[in-house]
């Protein structure tokens, strides 16, 4: 009988009754063949590997992270709440000590969902990793968390949620934004004024294969993690870097994904994208599960896998070698100013237009961070969906100083009096006070 070296909990929730639309990549069929493969392999019979049912995330879990307009219930469907609940269950298994590691094999994904949510973008509505991390911090106290996003698309949502958080290290490996949605994720995007170097973007050229990815892991990701010393490592385990993925251009393999996780040793992995549902997902998910459990994965090979033809050119390897040095600098010697935001009085202000591709509308947003010498600062967001009403969000961080906290409440009062906003949401992590007005 096989035995896992690390006990592993797998939250498998394929949502067999939910799709964005009948032929959308995010449809009922997506995890069907993964289920067949895991069952046929007898994965859950391996001693130490157990399957669990997800929780259902509550509106409070969502509103602890996101400014949701008009409200959490309107932006997140039941399927999103279960997917986020799957991630929460994974966290709960690891934090309670029931399992050493956990893998939330759930859908729909979440890493394109930003701090402010007006709708769905990039198949995502709410950020399931962020909801999980903040659940952990709310219940188990402050934690240093590293999120390594291995989805082929830049995790712009997770980057945005943690842009101002110095205690969360966000590293994203993705196909270069000049060639793929969402078009962001360059090394110069390295965090807000209070969290410089805590966002590390590693854009890889198309056709990068196993050697390139492992080079990045070895030469950039691991040294950075070693320095950051996180309490928890999370892998946003998107699987669309696979050479058969229909909507991307990378050459990563199931063996590569397994080796990556074997090196990263994430405490928790959460499935993100990946739409080669027959040729890749069954094998990649199996490989990740085995690697996390510490079971031999060397026989996991997808049909059509030929390392010779998939191998990247020397040119790409050279490019990646240079890139690794550059991104290490981003973390170890970050620039003194954020590339985004202008200083206006005591605030750092960003004006942005965000396109929601799944629903096809644009949000215009003004985000301001109070530059404080005693804490990471009060955050406020003014947002408006085109033609829609104005929304206002305020976040007082958990470690906020008294000044920022009090300033937050006076801004809240002011906003209510002015009645300029249709909706107002307050996230006060310090006192766990969560308020909504006008809903």
């Amino acid at each position, binding site marked *: *009988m*096989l035995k896992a070296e690390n006990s592993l909990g797998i939250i*498998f*929730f*394929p*949502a*067999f*009754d*939910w799709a964005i639309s*009948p*032929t959308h990549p995010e*449809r*009922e*069929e997506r995890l*069907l*063949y993964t*289920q*067949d*493969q895991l*069952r*046929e*392999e*007898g994965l859950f*019979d391996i001693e130490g590997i157990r*399957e*669990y*049912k*997800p929780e*259902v995330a509550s509106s409070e879990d969502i509103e602890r992270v996101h400014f949701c307009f008009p409200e959490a219930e309107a932006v997140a469907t*039941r*399927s999103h709440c*279960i997917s986020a609940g799957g991630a929460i269950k994974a966290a709960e298994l690891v934090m309670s000590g029931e399992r050493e590691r956990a893998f939330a094999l759930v859908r729909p994904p979440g890493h394109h969902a930003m701090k402010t949510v007006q709708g769905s973008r990039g198949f995502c509505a709410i950020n399931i990793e962020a909801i999980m991390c903040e659940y952990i911090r709310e219940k188990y106290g402050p934690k240093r968390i590293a999120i390594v996003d291995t989805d082929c698309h830049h995790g712009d949502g997770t980057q945005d949620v943690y842009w101002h958080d110095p205690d969360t290290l966000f590293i994203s490996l993705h196909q270069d934004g000049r060639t793929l949605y969402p078009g962001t994720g360059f090394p110069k995007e390295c965090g807000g004024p209070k969290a410089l170097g805590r966002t590390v973007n590693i854009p890889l050229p198309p056709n990068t294969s196993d050697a390139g990815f492992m080079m990045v892991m070895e030469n950039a990701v691991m040294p950075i993690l070693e320095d950051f010393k996180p309490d928890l490592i999370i892998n946003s385990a998107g699987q669309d870097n696979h050479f058969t993925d*229909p909507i991307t251009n990378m050459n990563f393999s199931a063996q590569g994904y397994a080796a990556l996780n074997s090196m990263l040793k994430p405490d928790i992995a959460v499935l993100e994208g990946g739409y080669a549902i*027959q040729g890749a997902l*069954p*094998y990649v998910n*199996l490989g990740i599960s*085995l690697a996390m459990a510490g*079971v*031999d994965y*060397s*026989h*996991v*090979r*997808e*049909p059509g896998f030929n390392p010779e033809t998939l191998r990247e050119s020397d040119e790409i390897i050279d490019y990646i070698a240079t890139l690794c040095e550059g991104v290490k600098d981003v973390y170890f010697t970050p620039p003194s100013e954020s590339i985004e935001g202008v200083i206006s009085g005591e605030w750092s202000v960003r004006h942005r237009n965000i396109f929601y591709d799944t629903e096809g509308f644009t949000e215009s947003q003004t985000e301001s961070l109070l530059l404080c010498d005693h804490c990471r600062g009060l955050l406020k967001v003014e947002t408006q969906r085109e033609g829609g009403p104005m929304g206002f969000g305020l976040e007082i961080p958990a470690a906020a100083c008294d000044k920022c906290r009090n300033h937050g409440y006076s801004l809240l009062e002011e906003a209510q009096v002015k009645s300029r906003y249709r909706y107002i949401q307050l996230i006060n992590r310090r006192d766990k006070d969560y308020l909504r007005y006008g809903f």
Partner: protein
Amino acid sequence: MLLLGIDVGGTHTDAVAIGPDGLEAQVKVATEHDNLLSSIKNSLGEILRHTDPARIKQLNLSTTLSTNSIVEGNYEDVGVIVSAGPGLDPHSFMTCKDFHVIPGSLDHRGSETKRLDNLALEGAIASCRNSGIKVYAAITKFSPRNPSHEKSIELAIGDNADFITLGHQITGRLNFPRRISTAFYNCAVWRVFNKFADAISATLDEMGLGQIKVNILKADGGTMPLDLSRKVPVQSIFSGPAASVMGIIALSNITHDSIIYDIGGTTTDIAIFAGGSPLIEQEGIHIGSHPTLVRALKVHSIGIGGDSAISIMDGSVRVGPNRLGPSIAFGGEIPTLTDALIWKDSCSCGNIEQSKAGFSAFAAGNVMEADRLADQAIGYAVDRIHDSTRALVDEINQQPVYTIHELLENRKIIPRKIYIMGGPAQAMKMDVFRKFRLSTEVPQNYDVANAIGAALTRTTTELELFADTERGLMFIPSLGHRENIPRNYRIEDAEKDAMNHLLAHLGEMHVASDGSNAQITSSSSFNMVSGSSTVGRNIRVKCQIKPGVDRTYS
């Protein structure tokens, strides 16, 4: 018209004859472990002395033959030929020395991704032949989606084998390692089981019962005809606990979520009912060191029984899990749970005086009052039973589901009633009731519930249908039935086909069924999309004859 039920257990063999108005005869004889046939003969002989043989219509038999043979390693060598393809290393599932892995693979939709290596196959068969192997198991990964590789192996083995088990014939459920061990065990006990079946037929002929229908009990609480059981003897393992559960169904009218206890000599078996139906183990039963795909009622055993020894460690009283000989009441030396119950006057069996004297001496030796010792021992046993039951119910309620609908509906099992059977049932009834505060019932005739269950349970079977309209194929692995289907084949057609094949299969086994016990247990249809257009549907339907008894009486 009489129905006979025989349950060959570890210590006793119970037999009953049931007529239209109830129990007409019951016998309990000691089981001769090394000669199960004689135990069956003896009990049958007793029954025949009390009944008219001409009225006997059917004999249902629950036997430990296959179980013992596997557990004791008393079986013949099997040639196991597998083909795995990518995934876990198949050598991790090596069941025996003649285990051969042949290159070749199928994927999850049943497409061949690598041809079966005929040269390697020939080599493997030659090696088995040289070792004197006469029975073979052929298992390939994803054979329930496409049996062609298993069939090629069967063809290549040909005359070298007296018997071959093909993985896909066992069940359509996916689980390659379990399919290997199930096929292996099926081959391993095939000869010993068939000899036994021959002997049973001969014995019945001798007794003038040659014309009656004989069925063998399975672990899922149903039966299979003797002729069929000759091909799938592995299905007869662990039928004993299931017989008892079916007995409770026959003896009591169960309609609520309930807990069933069968308190035996060394163990207590716990079963859970959802509504009126017993729960089935999701994957299959474990035997030896391997999990299998043998469908079974979910029965959890704990090491607490009437013969469980009482021990005192650091001042705390424990019961079990060891059995250190019989109770003092029956000539043993170390007090048991039964002796504690006798001390409290809850139970009267064996030599009461001897039991009480021994019990109080043991208490005195440990500087304890005998009353307190008895209370604590019984309390400990009931607590253990209680905690194990809670854990079991929690586990069942935690079972994964795969649709939003099921997750949000969240049907939970909340037991409302307890049924107890087995030797100490009556004696422990009040203690169990006080702990659980749930209505607790000990049915009449509980001491032969196992044989009654065996006599009255019906023939069950299950099948899985798998259809892929892109390829225009429908396949029912366990029946080996493959058929072309039109592109517009829908889930409704699949459900109808599955039910028709299920009932036709029963007909082939000469079992009359009106279809009222047949049910679809799960059914789903997925649109398969390529690019942005739907190219077909992937349909899966499971159906079964649900386990149950043909009549009840109480």
